[in-house]
Structures are given as C-alpha cells and as structure tokens.
C-alpha cells in the first residue's frame, strides 16, 4: 500500500498546463465580456438584434448545460422555451397582466411542466433519454400547432406587446436581455460551483455509486431539470416580448438540436462551452448569410471539422494549445 505513492503519477504533475488552462478560461470570460459591451460601442441596431439573439441562445444553452451536467442530453429544451413564450404571451395579451406577470407565469409554467415529466423521464439515461425527450418535444410542437385557441396554431401569435414601450427599441431591450442572460449564467455557474454541483458531477460520472453514498439521485436530477426548464421558460417569455410574434417552428426539434449543438460545439465539460457555443451558433450563420446558396454547405463543413478535430468542443482549443506546449502530455480524449 505504501508503495502506491511512488508508482503512480501525482495529478498536479499531469496537469502541468493548469495555469495556462485557467488563463484560457479567464481569457474566454474576458472575450465574452468584451463581446457583451461591443454592441454599445458600435451602436448599430442590427448588432443589438444579433446580440439579443446571442443572449437568448446563451440562456437556453447554459440552462440546457445544467441538465447535460447531470448526464442527460435533452432534445426538447426549445419546447420548454415555447411553453414559456406561449404562456407569457397569453397571460399578458388575454389576461391583461403586465410583462413581469407574463415572465413569472412563463417561467413557472415551464418549470411546472418540467416537474410533471421530470420524475418519469429522468429514470431513463443516456440514449434513451435523448430519444424520449426528442419525442416529447415533437409532441409539444404538435400541441403548439393544434391548440389554436391558445397558440394561434401554425400561424402563431402576433402583436405581442414589448415589455414596456421603451423596450421596443433593441438598444434598450439588449440591456434587459444582457441582464437576464448574465443573471441566468451566473445562477447556473453558482449551482455548478456549489456543493450541489459536486454531487451533480458525481451523478453524471456514476449514478449507481452516487445513489449508494446517500445522494437522492432522482430528486436531485429532477430539481436541476426543473430549474433548467424554468430558465427555458424565462427565455421563452423574453423571446415572445422581443420578437412580438411567435410560431411553432421557433420551438421545434431543430431549435432544440441547435441548443445541443451549442453545448457540443462549445464543449460539454464547463459552463464556458455553451456560452462560446451560443456565440458561435448565432454569429457563424450570420457571417455566412451573405453567401446565399453556399451558406449551409459552409456551415455543415464547419460542424464536421469542429467535431472531428475538437471532439471536446471549442473549449478543447485549450487542450490543443496545451498539447503543443507539453509534447508528452496524455491524450485528451473524453
């Protein structure tokens, strides 16, 4: 037993690149912060619009990241965004509540739906969870299309009011969206860095072992799922009152898949991943939009290249840099 200490490498040795990697993460946060204030420097309405879309994507992707950290990849997250959007729009337009009422109702409705289905579907793991959430998202989309009295059917709901007249201007709405996104990411980050995060990580790495040290696994997963769905509903309410017009394709399986892509492209291991992914997935198609008929082909090639050469996502660039700096480092396969 005593000999073990000499025969195995100590972890600090392996992680020679620790300071470089934390510098890179810090750098990532600095880039995000710089991008966040950039629209105000440029002061162009279209940049505000794009920045707002990044904020929405960031809330969606980082809340999905919470679920992913429990080891479950949900393919119906956009459907929960839809629940928040439709509930908020209805509460404001039909019941006459102010925007805040819609925001709260949308958040609670999505969280409530998460609480209803979470205990059932979170018993499934891995690919089975992916599949059941895919089907559930598809059913919700069909409900959005068919429940015409509430959702306006396939034609959607139009004429949704802005949160306040001043927020009809993207410049001011961006402040709201940025605040919301920052708060959401901060809460997600705090959950993951707290003791709760420790046991969330444990659940992902081995559900069985974690259950047997006394962690109520299902209850913890449901709690995280409900919080994440709540954030999705929150984002949905914001989207409804920004776009002023919502329709089912905004909340379909393709959008859910986009949120997963943000996580995978950015990196599923840390919260920085989905943030980079959100920026990536909003900006890259915008770069390409001008190449009218080639845009999709270029985007597809980018997806293939990132996944083939950075299997850990864009965040994995730091490992790639580290490998260059430390020639004999261990392979960073995940």
């Amino acid at each position, binding site marked *: 037993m005593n000999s073990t200490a000499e025969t195995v490498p100590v972890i600090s040795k392996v992680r020679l690149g620790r300071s470089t990697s934390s510098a890179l993460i810090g750098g990532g946060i600095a880039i995000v912060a710089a991008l966040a204030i950039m629209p105000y420097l440029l002061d162009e309405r279209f940049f505000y619009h794009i920045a707002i*879309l990044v904020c929405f994507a960031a809330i969606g992707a980082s809340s999905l990241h919470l679920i992913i950290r429990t080891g479950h990849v949900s393919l119906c997250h956009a459907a929960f965004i839809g629940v928040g959007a439709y509930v908020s729009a209805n509460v404001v337009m039909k019941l006459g509540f102010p925007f805040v009422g819609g925001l709260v109702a949308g958040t609670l409705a999505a969280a409530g739906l998460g609480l209803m289905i979470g205990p059932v579907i979170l018993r499934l793991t891995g690919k089975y969870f992916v599949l059941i959430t895919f089907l559930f998202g598809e059913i919700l989309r069909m409900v959005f*299309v068919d429940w015409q009295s509430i959702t306006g059917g396939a034609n959607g709901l139009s004429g949704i009011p802005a949160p306040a007249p001043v927020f009809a201007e993207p410049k001011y709405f961006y402040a709201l969206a940025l605040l919301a996104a920052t708060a959401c990411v901060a809460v997600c980050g705090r959950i993951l860095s707290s003791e709760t995060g420790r046991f969330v990580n444990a659940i992902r790495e081995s559900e069985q072992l974690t259950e047997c040290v006394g962690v109520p696994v299902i209850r913890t997963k449901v709690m995280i799922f409900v919080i994440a769905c709540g954030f999705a509903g929150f984002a949905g309410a914001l989207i409804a009152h920004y776009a002023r*017009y919502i329709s089912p*394709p905004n909340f379909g399986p393709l959008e859910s898949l986009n949120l997963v892509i943000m996580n995978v492209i950015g990196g599923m291991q840390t919260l920085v991943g989905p943030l980079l992914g959100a920026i990536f997935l909003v900006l890259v198609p915008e770069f390409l939009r001008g190449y*009218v008929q080639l845009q999709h082909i270029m985007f597809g090639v980018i997806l293939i290249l990132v996944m083939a050469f950075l299997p850990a996502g864009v965040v994995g660039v730091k490992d790639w840099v580290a490998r260059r700096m430390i020639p004999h480092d261990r392979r960073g396969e995940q």
Partner: protein
Amino acid sequence: MIKISRRNALAGIAAAAAIATVSSTALAAETLRIGAIGSLSGGGTAWGLAIKRGAELAIDEVNQAGGLSVGGKNYNLELLMYDDQYTGQGGKTAAERLVFQDKVKYIVGPIGSNPVLSAMEVTTPQKVLLMSNGYTPKILDNEHKASYNFRFTLTNLEYAPSMMKWVKENLKVTKVGILVPNDAIGQSVAPPLVKLYQDNGIQTVVDYYERGSKEFSPLITRLMAAGIDGFDINFNAPGEAGLMVKQARQIGYDKLVYQMGGPSVPEIIEVAGQHSEGFISYEMFDFDAPSAQPFVKAYAAKYGKGIINSQTPAFYNATKILIEAIRRADTVDDTTKIRDAVEKLAGYDAGVYGPVRWTGKAIYGVDHQLALPFYVVEVKNGKPVTRAVLSVD
C-alpha cells in the same frame, strides 16, 4: 473554423468588421440595392429560389437596358438576399439586417405567413416596402392601415368565390374530400374553404396531415370510404399534391380529382405522370401563353430547363412593378412616395400578367392586393389545357 474562433478570440471588433464586410460589398454610388427575403433552407427552398430568380430576371432586364435613371442619376440594380429558413425568427433577423445594416428601402419576399408576419414587425415601422406573399389576411389587414405592404399573388379570399362558382357549375360535385397540411397555410385556408363549400350546399370531409408526409393512401382510403365524389387537393406543396393525385389513382379512386387553389400544374404532372390525366386545377400562371414566352426563355437561359415554380413570375412581376414605381416616383429614398406610386400604377403592364389592378379594400381595408387573372386548366395527354380564364370579382 479555427480561424473564425481565433478571430473571435482576438477581438470582437474584428468579428463585427467581418460581418460588415460580408454584407456591405462596397456601396458604389451608382448601385441601388433591392432587398429580398426568402427561404433557402429546408422544405421552403423552392419558394426562396422562386423569389431569387424572379427578382434577378427583372433586375437583369433593367440593367441590360442600361439601368434605372432616377433624379438625374443612373443606377445599376443589385439584389441582396437573405435566407429566412421559412421561420418567423429567420424572417425577423433577415429583415433587421436588410433594413438596419444594409439600409435597404424595399424588399421582395418573403413567402409564407410566419416569415412575412415577423419581417413586417421590422419593415413597417421603418416605412420599408415589403412585396410579399402569405395566406394570412393580417399581412394587409393590420394595425398599420395604409401600410407599406403589397401582396402579389392571390389568396383563397380572392379567387375562391369565382372558382367555387365555376366548380359548382361545371363539376357537379356533392361531397368533397379535402386533405390539407397541418401548418400555417392549411390552418389559414381550410376553415374558410369548408365554409364556402357548405354555403354552396356541398358536403366536405376534411383531414389534416403533418407536413413532410409522403404516404397519403391511408388518408385517401378513409376519404373514399366516406363516399366522396370529388377530391380537392388544395394548398399542398407541389410534390405532395402530385403524390396525392398519383396515390389516389393507384388505390383505385376513379372519381374527380381537382384543386381549387394551390401549386402549379406542371409540377403535379411531373410527379403524378400518367395519373394526372383529367386532373382539373386552378392555375395562377399560364406558361404556354404567348405573352409568357420571353420570360420562360430568359429563365431557361439563366437557370436551365427545369420546372419553373409558379411563384417565379409573381416575383418577377413584383420586382418589375417596384422598379417602375421607383422610376415614376423619381426618388430612391422616399418610400412613402414610392408606395403612393405603386398604388397609382394601375394600367401598367409588366409583361406577364397584363395591366396592374389593385383590389382588397373590401376585405383588408386597403387596396394593396394585386388582382390577377387566373385559369382553370385540365390535364389532357400530359399537358395542361386551359378550360376557363377567371378573374377576381
């Protein structure tokens, strides 16, 4: 890809600059840009290409004739088009970019209620002209009366009454089966259509299917069991409509198949082949008409001999009308003047549909709906043959 993310990493400014360079390809003093929005992704791609090609043909014509002279200057026209992915979100983003980033003053497209309604939220407050096509009445009938929107193809509200009269007199159906997609078009048009049939004393059996289905035999079997003597394949995308005709015949349905509205007949003939014989249809454009031949030739020269989507002439027409209005208003900036010029364009003939006539006041409160002639055709020996030419009342 690594290049892009590094660029992000180095400075956000660079990213923004890159967006700007991609979109604003050197605004030369002599270039006038016309915006376009259309779906170039997924199932709506055929329509996006129709907008793109129709507008390009109209612009080419003007440029080849030496450009457009307005206010003493001569402009070379250029089309700037963005994809809307056939969604509301995409329509809004494309409109934001055209209006605020590229400072475009007039937009042709999009097609489809979702992208039109959300693009409208951006363009109308900025007084940007939107020459679009979608089935929902809200495109013209909204809180901004005297808006900056015009519609260039007919919807069921325009053509259905005259079409119904013709169907009732000539086809003598008593019980009609209708299959519609469960999407924005289907949900907009099916209820008024059913009501119209009922008002004319004709029974209906309606069923919805999910967009993207290819197998309609079960649904048609169901309609047959209900004892229909007419099958109206209204409002389906061309491929789906063609499959419905083919599959109905294949499972032994031998009564009438027709459509009171919807896609063009050549596409249905292509998909259904010999089974399309005897099919009767509303048709928005007659590609065999002598007046259409210059357009058809120009299309084939530029895009090959494939089937021409019937929205293509509509957007060719829309672009030509827009250009003519700019010429008459004698301004490229004052969109209110240009709009007024569009409204007063009655009698102008863009070449493919005959003289312009505006309608819509009774239904939408504003005369911004182009009144087009439309046709009833029957497929004989694999060719559409015109049986009647109808017009909006």
